[in-house]
């Protein structure tokens, strides 16, 4: 099956991104497809400039999910309002519009929302 995530919170502020990572990893390991749309502060989870000495690197964890086949996109408008540029984003992920979000919703058999 295909499992979709909407993640609206940023890194090192809320546990949401950790929960999404744990669940998405397991869905991938079970052979499911994963779609993740990062919205509002969620876009910051893809910032490749994140440096987290002696702690888990959440951007690298997102990159790992992408590398394992998860499709991960972040809202371009949210990024623009938050000063995050296309070139700031980790490999294997992209900024996108709400068309992609809608397609993820269409493609999914299960859908999870993580907000504030």
């Amino acid at each position, binding site marked *: 099956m295909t499992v979709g995530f909407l993640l609206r919170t940023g890194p090192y502020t809320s546990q949401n991104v950790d929960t999404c990572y744990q669940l998405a990893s397991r869905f991938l390991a079970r052979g499911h497809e994963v779609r993740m749309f990062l919205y509002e502060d969620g876009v910051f989870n893809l910032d490749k400039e994140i440096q987290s000495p002696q702690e888990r690197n959440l951007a690298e964890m997102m990159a790992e999910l992408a590398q394992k086949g998860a499709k991960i996109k972040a809202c371009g408008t949210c990024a623009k309002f938050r000063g995050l540029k296309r070139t700031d984003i980790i490999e294997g992920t992209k900024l996108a519009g709400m068309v992609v979000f*809608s397609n993820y919703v*269409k493609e999914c058999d299960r859908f999870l*929302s993580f907000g504030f």
Partner: protein
Amino acid sequence: MEAKKVAVLIRSAPYGMATAGEGFRALIGLVSMGIQTHVVLVDDGVMVALKNQSPEVLDMNNLVDLYAQLPGLGAKLYLHHPSLADHGISPDACIEAEVLDDEKLRRLISSVDHVITFN
């Protein structure tokens, strides 16, 4: 792929957090891509429907005016009645929307493919 149906639950009050505003942008995306979209204002989300909002004093966009456009855009708008009652808001003080009790909300949820929450 067959047409999908979703219920979007807006659970937060307008302006204090971006939730209701960004939720609107998301559901406009859903509607424009042909997804049958049911928007339910629930919990603090019912405050979005209150008439006479003046967010220009905060230099912000008026959300009740945006949400009022939903039916015209093809999305269905609902108000959760127990949330209205808890908040001491009469449906008459709100923009036009179908009022749902818990049982009707459960049935709406059963009828859709996905529930997307903005909280």
